[in-house]
């Protein structure tokens, strides 16, 4: 997408690290603990910083077998998280953390081929677990995101584990290559591989809103938006961002609501008008189960044991 001969410009700010190229500009915040701005072709893709996500809105099966109560700590972890450490690498070399006053040595004319910001989070669970998220920006503007959840077996099974991106406006739709329909690890045999375009962000209208819309085994995904919150933006055409798998396919959901918003509604009409895009790129997905809805658990092989490390990677690029 970019002229690969071009170098990244690095802006060593007092509160953030800016990284830009001819058609992109990213801001990695120190104080807010994450990627604060993801601008591609002049349009902002972030509403709040992407953070690790651990919760899924209780399904009827989860409720019936008490899973939500057992895994309750992960609801808090999903809503609030501590940032423990931030580190920066430039051209694969760890540099002295470039906050003030260390950043006084820079001039504003710094360039690199590659830059990396790594955030280390600690969950508020007891005991805590850690999640390391590394953003590696290359000169073509692509961002590789590596996520590593370090397990702790004394914690309850996880409802989900992924990265949640909240985008400023509601997506017009999305397109992906993967399986048809809504799929879960224990319900994906019927999914047909192909390229699918989805209008809007359908929330599967289960009688009580619950986790929905997961797409397993995805090779790539493009989010399509037509609106921004920028008052000076005059362009009307749709624009896209692309998420590509690295090494292995990923799972995702793209909904107008967070897990907590879905969790609180007892009817679909109680959900607010779709206003934002909540994209979850999932490294681990718990099965939905189905033997019954009043006690039988999801089959063991479709659980997410908290003691197991979870690693996944994906790449973000413009389109």
């Amino acid at each position: 997408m970019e002229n690969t001969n071009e170098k990244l410009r690095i802006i060593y700010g007092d509160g953030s690290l800016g990284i830009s190229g001819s058609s992109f500009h990213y801001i990695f915040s120190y104080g807010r603990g994450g990627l604060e701005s993801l601008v591609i072709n002049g349009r902002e893709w972030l509403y709040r910083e992407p953070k690790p996500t651990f919760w899924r809105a209780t399904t009827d099966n989860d409720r019936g077998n008490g899973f939500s109560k057992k895994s309750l700590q992960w609801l808090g972890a999903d809503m609030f998280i501590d940032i423990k450490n931030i580190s920066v690498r430039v051209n694969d070399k760890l540099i002295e953390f470039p906050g003030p006053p260390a950043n006084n040595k820079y001039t504003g004319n710094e360039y690199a081929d590659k830059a990396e910001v790594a955030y280390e989070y600690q969950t508020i669970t007891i005991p805590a677990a850690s999640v390391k998220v590394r953003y590696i920006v290359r000169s073509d503007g692509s961002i590789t995101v590596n996520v590593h959840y370090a397990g702790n077996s004394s914690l309850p099974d996880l409802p989900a584990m992924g990265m949640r991106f909240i985008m400023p406006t509601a997506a017009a739709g999305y397109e992906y290559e993967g399986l048809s329909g809504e799929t879960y690890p224990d319900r994906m045999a019927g999914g047909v591989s192909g390229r699918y375009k989805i209008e809007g962000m359908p929330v599967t209208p289960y009688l009580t809103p619950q986790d929905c819309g997961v797409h397993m085994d995805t090779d790539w995904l493009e989010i399509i938006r037509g609106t921004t919150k920028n008052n000076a933006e005059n362009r009307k055409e749709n624009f896209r961002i692309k998420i590509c798998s690295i090494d292995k396919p990923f799972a995702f959901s793209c909904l107008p609501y967070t897990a907590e918003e879905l969790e609180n509604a007892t009817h679909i009409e109680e959900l607010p008008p779709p206003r934002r895009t909540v994209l979850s790129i999932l490294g681990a997905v718990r099965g939905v189960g189905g033997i019954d809805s009043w006690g039988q658990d999801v089959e063991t092989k479709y659980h997410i044991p908290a003691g197991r490390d979870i690693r996944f990677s994906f790449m973000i690029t413009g389109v």
Partner: protein
Amino acid sequence: MQADINWLDDPEVFRTGQLLPHSDHRFYKNYDEVKNEKSSFVQTLNGSWQFHFSKNPMTRPEKFFAENFDSSSFGIIKVPGHIELAGYDKIHYINTLYPWEGHFYRRPAYSMGPDKKEEGMFSKAEDNPVGSYIKKFALKPEFFGKKVRIRFDGVEEAMFVWLNGNFLGYAEDSFTPSEFDLTPYIKKGENKLAVEVFKRSTAAFLEDQDFFRFFGIFRDVKLIAQPEVHVEDLLIEPKVTDNFQDGDLNIHCKISVGDAAAGVRFIVKDRDDKILYEKEQQAGNNIKIDGVVFKQVHLWDNAAPYLYRLFIELFRADGTLLEIVPYEFGFRRIEIKDKLILLNGKRLIINGVNRHEWSAETGRAITYQDMKRDVDIIKNNNINAVRTCHYPDQDIWYRLCDEHGIYVMAENNLESHGSWQKAGEVEPSYNVPGSLPEWRAVVLDRAKNNYELLKNHPSIIFWSLGNESYAGDNIEAMNKYYKQTDSSRLVHYEGVVRNRKYDGVISDVESRMYASPDEIADYLSNDPQKPFILCEYMHNMGNSLGGMSSYIQLIDRFPMYHGGFIWDFIDQALLVEDELTGQKVLRYGGDFDDRPSDYEFSGDGLLFANRTEKPAMQEVRYYYGKYK
């Protein structure tokens, strides 16, 4: 005969003045009518009826059936339909507990002792609303001088019927037709039909299905005239010979013959209109044709639901045609051999669903279009079997299943869940029907109603005694009734697993619900005595249907595993206007101030209540397609 409201309290009174149940054959005047499926012998009474709602029996307009009764204050209701959905009574959903839970204390008559008759339990109940229906109609001129009956296809859950002030009878079984002879009282001019429908009677203990608790005239009502010679009942017995090549057909016909001599002609045609058999004889009350051999028959099954066509023509001595009865039948054999369920000699695999009759707009008052849509969805998704949970459906449904090769488990109208399972525990201290002698005839009547109506449908391969009613002598008697009456089908009942004492005398199959794959493997690995099916499995509530592969794998591991019926086909939820936005939204139990409720527990379908497919359907299509 006078109507007696105390019948509501008496489990031994459940049908009074009704005509005998009989086969669901249609009859026509000529072949044009046969072709258009429009019988001039039928006059519908569907439409607008006068209606009065009373909160309880004490406040009902008792004499409303009288010809001189002033009904000018009555409102209007649409028939068929539920009284609750017309706005007269509160909508209520509850699953297993009886609908009066927490409001009224009740024990079934005789369950606490032979002297505990519980008089007045329903006839004087504050929570027993009454619908008083009046329909004024004029008979079609071509009905004059003929015998005329009225047929109610479904009324919940107890009704008294009058014509022109004369009492005709009383009926309970909500999901099979009730017919009354109008001939003695019918007039050429305006007739006044009065129907008094009660929400509760002793039938309420037997109709504790997991559904919205509606009452009213919710299926078609029609007048049926009959020609002077008429087929009253028809039994078609197509048998497949041991070599699975040839067919052997018996036809038994009950005919009401008039005074004049009449003839009857039997014609059997194949699908290409080729006449395979023809026989003519004098009409008599009981005609039996036995052992007609058909060489090299097309067998009926899911893949090729081949139907032969029987025409019975009744005619006067001069040859004038009086009546034609067409009936499509199929040759198929269902049996258990070496502990395996075989259909036409091959192992049966049930890729099934449980299906309630449901529409988000009209509840259980569904249309033919709804049924056609269901058939399409069933066929498109490789579903091959339906359990009619937990009552008989409209009879046209079974015809659709014949045509489309859908195997049917035809269930009786029986579920007494609240009488034996409480707080999740088996507690049958006041179970009905149990072994109480006073509750035997009523459940046998339900078995008979189901059999007599539907006995000619090749699609029905199982009779099901009912659902979740525990097990006792009375269900054993139902089992015995089917075994003695019908050798061409299997008998199913799951509840015997709750009371193993009856294992040997109830159910041809070991049937479970929601058993895990491991539990099934355990049964099938330990000297199983009966072939195994799941009458309910994969509870598709909300986002569910995960792990289906573990069930599908059992098919190859255990020959005695015969598959099952997913719970269930369509969410039961109601489309109503949102009080804030005016949008149409789907609502469920508890949304109508109905308490106690089981809330969203009726949302377990492969379809949403608006008949769109849930995402899980692609999984069903895939796995069921593997064993098509």
